Every structure is written in C-alpha cells, then in structure tokens.
C-alpha cells in the first residue's frame, strides 16, 4: 500500500501540459555545444495522473485545516482563506515594472510597514527578509554594521543568547561571524540577571531575546535587562517568534529592544506551507535605520517609490523586495482585526494556553516552570514516559503533537501552543487524549502510531545511508 512516486507513474512519451504549438528546433537557436545531451529524467504524466498524485499526497498529510496542531513556538493558527484570494489579486506584478505602475503594491508595503512599526514600537522597517531566521540574520548584520560604523566592530565579537533560545539564534550569530555565549535561565525560567550582568561588556555586540521566552514566560525584568544592555552598549534583539502572545498589549520597542524581527507566517497568519515561504520583516530603532537593507519603500510627493540611496545599508539579504505575496496576507489580517481584534487574539491565545496547562496538570503532567504562562507552556510527562512516545500516541488519537524536546533546558519537554483560533472543546479533547495516553500500556505507546499512512520510520537508516533522490542507488 505504499504510495507511488511520481516517477513510478511516469510513462515514456506521455504528455501533460503542452504550452507550445509549433516547437522550434533547438539547433536552429542555440549552438550545439550549449545543448543538453541527456534530457532530465523528469516524470512524464498526463494531467489527471498529476492531479491524482498530488491530491493523494495531500490526503496523506495533516495540517491546521485538518487537525489541532499545537506545535509550540510555531503559532499554528487558522490561515484565513480570504488571504489566498487577496494574494491572487497581486500575483501578476513584475518587480522591475515601472514603480508608477505598481503604486498599489508599493502602498500596501508602505502601509504594512507603518502597521508593523506601530505594533512593535519601532522607527523603521524592512520587509525584505524571507523568514524568521532570515530576519534574525538581517537584524544581526544591521547591529554588526552599526558597531563597525562606530569603530567597535573589532571589539564587540560576542552575541549572547539565553539557554532557552531557539536554535536559530545562535546559528544566526555564527552566520554573522559572532561567537555565541549562553546565558542560563534562572529558577523561574527567566533570564538569570546576575549571569547576564557577568557576561555584558564592551566585547558584546548583542543580546538576543525571545519575549515571552520559549518557556512561554514573559521576562518580567525586561526593562532592567534593556537598561543594562544600553549601559553596556549592547544592542538588544527581539526574536518575534512569540509576538502572538502580546501583540497590541506590549511593544518590544517600549521594552527597550533595538531590533525586532516578526514572523508573518506565525503571528500574522501567512500559511506555513509545509515549511515556508514565510516572511520576516525587521524593525529597528532610529539609530539603526541607516543600516537597513535596500530598497525601502518610501512615500514621496509623486507617490510611493523604492529608495536605494542608502549609503550605510548592509546591502541586500534577498533579491527584489521580499516575499511580497506574504505581505498582502499580513496586511489583510491586520486590516480585518484592527487593534482591538489583535489584542483579543493575543489575550485568547494566552487564555487558551493557560487553560490547557491547567487541564494537563490535572491529567498528571508537570510544568517545571509554572509561572504566568503566555501563549504557550512547556510540560513534562510523569516519570517513565518518553515525550517521543507520547507524540506518536497522539498521532494515533488524531492530534498533531506539540513540539517535543525543546527547549533543551526541560527534559522530555512538550512545548504546547494552542493559539487563539482553537475552541475550548478542542483543548479539552486534547487534554483527554493526553490523559488517556498515560493509561495506555507501555508497549502500545512504544509502537504507536498504528493507523497512520506509515508507522514509525527508520530514522537511523536514513541518517546512515540517506537516499535523497529517486535515481540514487
């Protein structure tokens, strides 16, 4: 019952889409030495086979549209279908068409920038980065350029990240040429202030924080942290992965952050698409604005235009102007909700998380850092249960599991983010399932799932001898 690969459905000479009526001869157009000798072994299928193949694959896949999907740190909220229609309206624009013929698109970008600046409390913004981690890189490159511009580029060689940080934070710092130092979390799950003080200094370029952090806890001493950073000349970076918890209620800018990236595919309903494309705009305070990548969308007397004349810019992190069609979706979301709607969404995201936390505790799960949770929380199963087995058991019961084994500071971590678009009874059904798992025989758990399209896969084999293409022997 294994599902055929598209290559296995291929038949020599079969044709799907034919877009060209009179096909010119290659040799008449291109010198022979440039021509491909062996055609690529692409599948040869008719259109119905194509449709059955990908429709069939989609039926072997779950998503938010099918299933509760409380993947911590990923904000798997509902993606309005309205936005897909919205994006279609702007699909047919070329990045190099005369800007006067793209005033609607440029206005939308400019307006979105204004909205995001207002929501984050930042002074300037770029919409260019293509994802969250890409935004991180952009932000750190901006900080780097700032320090270099001030003559401190050679001394500030370290980026600090909490031990609970997303892996992308240290990876980003490395990509930007920095050394990474970890700050431990204190007993309440927030940054250990004393440890931070010890690390801060003229060798530090930036501190990267997620707030609320990956334990789902708001860093209550954030104003002190930002003051300390300011005093030490350290730029404070806001990882926006968790902005959904506080949007409209509190702004990174007001907390003293110098740079913010946003994940439009988390907070602002751009669909995750199985892993992208996302969008990671970066907002900065005024002192960092000169370093933003080019171009920026500006409003002039003759309309909106692209500003390339930014001599201190870090240059570019992506071709063109970012994932524009993602921006359209985020614009639509903000215009639909307005400030009150965004605040309500954030509050209900928090309420859902806190409610589910209570339910899970009742079922026997522990929450090691049980502070005032925001949009997510990190639970632990009772002694003797493996997070992995519980995840697989959940699959059998029809739920997508939470993020497991993250953050690293909690053993057997189950990081649960229900989001505000889930209904109370869904949370309750999930808690029931989580409770039921603890009563299953050990063997059942270790072998789950059973009725999914495939069961547990041999990961070791894939790692040892990866087969990465169909034609690989």
């Amino acid at each position, binding site marked *: 019952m294994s599902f055929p690969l598209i290559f296995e459905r291929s038949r020599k000479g079969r044709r799907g889409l034919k877009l060209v009526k009179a096909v010119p001869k290659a040799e008449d157009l291109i010198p022979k030495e*440039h021509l491909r000798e062996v055609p690529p072994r692409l599948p040869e299928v008719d259109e119905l086979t194509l449709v059955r193949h990908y429709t069939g694959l989609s039926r072997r896949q779950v998503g938010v549209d099918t299933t509760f999907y409380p993947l911590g740190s990923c904000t798997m909220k509902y993606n309005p279908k309205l936005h897909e229609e919205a994006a279609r309206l702007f699909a047919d624009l070329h990045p190099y068409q005369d800007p006067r013929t793209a005033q609607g698109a440029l206005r939308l970008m400019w307006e979105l920038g204004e909205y995001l600046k207002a929501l984050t409390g930042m002074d300037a913004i770029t919409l260019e980065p293509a994802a969250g981690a890409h935004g991180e890189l952009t932000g750190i490159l901006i900080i780097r350029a700032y320090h270099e511009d001030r003559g401190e580029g050679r001394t500030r060689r370290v980026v600090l990240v909490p031990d609970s940080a997303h892996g992308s934070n240290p990876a980003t710092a490395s990509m930007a040429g920095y050394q990474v130092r970890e700050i431990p979390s204190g007993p309440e799950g927030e940054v250990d202030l004393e440890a931070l003080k010890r690390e801060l200094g003229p060798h530090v370029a930036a501190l990267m924080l997620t707030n609320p952090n990956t334990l789902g806890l708001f860093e209550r001493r954030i104003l002190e942290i930002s003051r300390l950073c300011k005093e030490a000349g350290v730029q404070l970076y806001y990882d926006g992965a968790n902005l959904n918890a506080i949007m409209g209620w509190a702004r990174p800018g007001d907390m003293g952050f110098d740079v913010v990236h946003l994940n439009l595919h988390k907070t602002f309903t751009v669909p995750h698409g199985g892993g992208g494309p996302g969008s990671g705009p970066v907002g900065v305070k005024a002192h960092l604005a000169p370093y933003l990548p080019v171009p920026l969308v500006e409003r002039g007397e003759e309309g909106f235009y692209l500003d390339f004349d930014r001599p201190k810019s870090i240059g570019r992190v992506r071709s*063109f102007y970012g994932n524009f069609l993602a921006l359209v979706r985020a614009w639509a979301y903000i215009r639909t909700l307005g400030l009150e709607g965004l605040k309500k969404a954030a509050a209900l995201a928090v309420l859902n998380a806190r409610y589910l936390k209570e339910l899970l505790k009742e079922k026997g799960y522990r929450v090691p850092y049980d502070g005032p949770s925001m949009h997510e929380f990190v639970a632990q199963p009772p002694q003797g249960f493996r997070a992995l087995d519980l995840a697989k058991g959940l699959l059998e019961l029809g739920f997508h599991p939470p993020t497991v084994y993250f953050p690293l500071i909690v053993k057997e971590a189950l990081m649960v983010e229900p989001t505000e678009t889930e209904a109370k009874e869904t949370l309750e059904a999930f808690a029931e399932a989580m409770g039921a798992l603890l009563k299953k025989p050990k063997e059942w758990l270790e072998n789950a799932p059973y009725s999914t399209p495939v069961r547990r896969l041999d990961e070791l084999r894939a790692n040892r001898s990866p087969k990465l293409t169909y034609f690989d022997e």
Partner: protein
Amino acid sequence: MDYTPHTEEEIREMLRRVGAASLEDLFAHLPKEILSPPIDLPEPLPEWKVLEELRRLAAQNLPAHKAFLGGGVRSHHVPPVVQALAARGEFLTAYTPYQPEVSQGVLQATFEYQTMIAELAGLEIANASMYDGATALAEGVLLALRETGRMGVLVSQGVHPEYRAVLRAYLEAVGAKLLTLPLEGGRTPLPEVGEEVGAVVVQNPNFLGALEDLGPFAEAAHGAGALFVAVADPLSLGVLKPPGAYGADIAVGDGQSLGLPMGFGGPHFGFLATKKAFVRQLPGRLVSETVDVEGRRGFILTLQAREQYIRRAKAKSNITTNAQLTALMGAMYLAALGPEGLREVALKSVEMAHKLHALLLEVPGVRPFTPKPFFNEFALALPKDPEAVRRALAERGFHGATPVPREYGENLALFAATELHEEEDLLALREALKEVLA
C-alpha cells in the same frame, strides 16, 4: 471581525479556571510602564470590505502579464492545475514535517522535488529549497568555503547584481573576500584562480542573457582546489547543458521560471544542488527515503545534525522555514510539463527572444549589447535613459526595458520573451518603442 471561536460565556468559564479576573488580568504581570500603549491602526473591517480595499489597491497596478521585462523574473504561464493543487489545505497549512507519520504528503513531494532539481542540475542531490536564488547562491558559496576551508570567492559580473549584493552581505559577515570578474564583451573572462579562492561563481545564461561556456571555469576552479558554483535558470536547463555536465560542484538558482506567479518578486524559491560527497556540509532540510516498522517505504527528514535546531551555533546555516510550498509548485510544474514540455517552453522563449531582438534592432537608435548566443533575454543599448523608456512604454500599456545597472554600461535595458509572446506582441512592442524613441 476576528477568527477566535470563544463565546463570552466560555471566556468567563476559562478565566475562572485559570484564576484570572479578566482578559486584561492575563497581562497584569507585565511592567505597567509598557502595558497597553496607544497604537494607531485603522479600524477593523468585515472581510468583504477588506477585499474591496485590496481590489482598490490592486487596481492601482498595471498587471505585468506578457511583460517583456527580464532580470531574474519573467512573465510565464502559471498553470491553474498547479495553483489548484498547491492550494489544498493540507499543503497550505502544515508546517515542517517533524512528524513523518502524518506528513508523508509533504515529505514525499519534497523527495520528488529534490530528485527533479538534481536531474535538472545534472548533480547528485539537492536540498528541500532555499528562500530564493540569491540566498541559495550565498549558501552555496558558504558551503564551498566550508568544504575547501578557504575564504576567497571569485564572482562573475554576469551573476545577477542583486544576487551578488546578497552574496556580499553574507560573505562579509564571515570575513570572506569577494572578487568580481568584470564581463568582457558581455561574457565572463576566464580568471586566474588563486590558492585562497574556495569558490568560482558564474551564471549561465548570465545577467545579460548571454550563454557562457562553463567548462573552462570548472577546470580552472578545480585546478586551483576551488569549487565551481553555477547559477542557473531552471527553465533553461530543459535545453541547456546542465551545470553538472560542465563539471560544476554546486548549482543554484531561482524557481520563478517554473510557472510561479511573479508576485512583485516573491515568494519564489531557491534551489541548491550539489554532489553527494558534500551532503554533510549542505545547509537546509533534506528528505530521505527509508522504511517504517512494517517495511513500507516512507520519507523522513534526515541529517538533521546539520541544522540549527539541533546543532545551534555549529549548524551549517540558520535556515529553518524555507520555501516549501513554492518549491512544491515548482515540482508540480515540472511534473505537469515533463522533459518535453519543459524543453518546448524553453525553446519557444528562446525563439521569441531572438525574433524580438531582431525586431527591436530595427528601431532607430537601438544598438545590440548582449552578444550572441543568448537565451531568452538580452540587453540593448538605448539612445535614452532606460527608466524613462520603461515609463514611456508603460504609458502605452507595455512592460519592457528593465534598466540595467550602470556598472554594465550606459543606457542599457533588458528585454525578455517567453512562451506567452506571439508575433503580433513583438511587432506591437517594436512600434511602441519606435514611438518612445522618436
């Protein structure tokens, strides 16, 4: 006008359960100084009004269907069948397939994508996608530097200037040195490759549309212990000799030409193909075939120790979210067309570009710039500022004359043709250009 399911009663009940008095109360532990600042956003709107506003904005754009604009994005046919299949909610609303048992759809489709990209590139493997062509290039070059342990990069000026800008930003961050090889007569001259050079980068067709002979570059790079990185348009690989056949170690490029909407520049996807020997240095996701406990074939993310969420500061890249859905659309396009269909689209584009070239040269004052052989776009030297020409053409309903940066010469503009252009379209553009330049 929001997407929350909670009734007032449910909110009350849940608040009671969590011991909070109100929704505001959930934020009571935040510093008072920063709580609930005034924020200026437009009033919320019902969805029909949002759509109206969007339509109003959309009406302020002149759609670029059948544009003659080049420069890394072109107006190709976007097959409705691909759009319809990619719009399936399961593809749209899943995330990274960490749970393979319920993610075989995305995983298998990605495995198939990897195969198709490797085939196009004439290389052994490909990753699951990058953000775009430019970042794929940057990551490809970083891979080459890791693999060679060197810090020098030779880049042809024929590589898209925006790609080079991105490459520069990425390389400067890690202290690598970028040296540009200026074009000579529209093509890349063969360089001396020094011992500090870890990567030599050439684009084919190059930014001006000209075909490059990649073989000698690969040889020169290999001779000096460097890797050869080729930037390629995947559509062109339906007919052109693939990077692998030229000896390239790494091939990168942007997927827009594979039937993706232009979307004012994105999202598209970047591809990155290479040799299996470099797999452990490869950034980004990889899907491998394997088997489940019952021996059934299945697919799974593999070699995750390269990735940031496992390896953190030692990861090969910080990339996590990539361009899964648009890459899937690229794969669907390739499957819909097959090798023949792809070849036909590519050849038709080339044919129409050549006809266009001949026609536009009939316009007084227009001179050729891109040398032959070129592919489906080319630069012309215009007697006027290309931005003004582009604008004047737009006023006549034509999108043409992508201004070429000054570094390539004065008053240059790119023109492209695709499978969508018919003879009458070319003639109409010629007439419009005549008017504009008269």
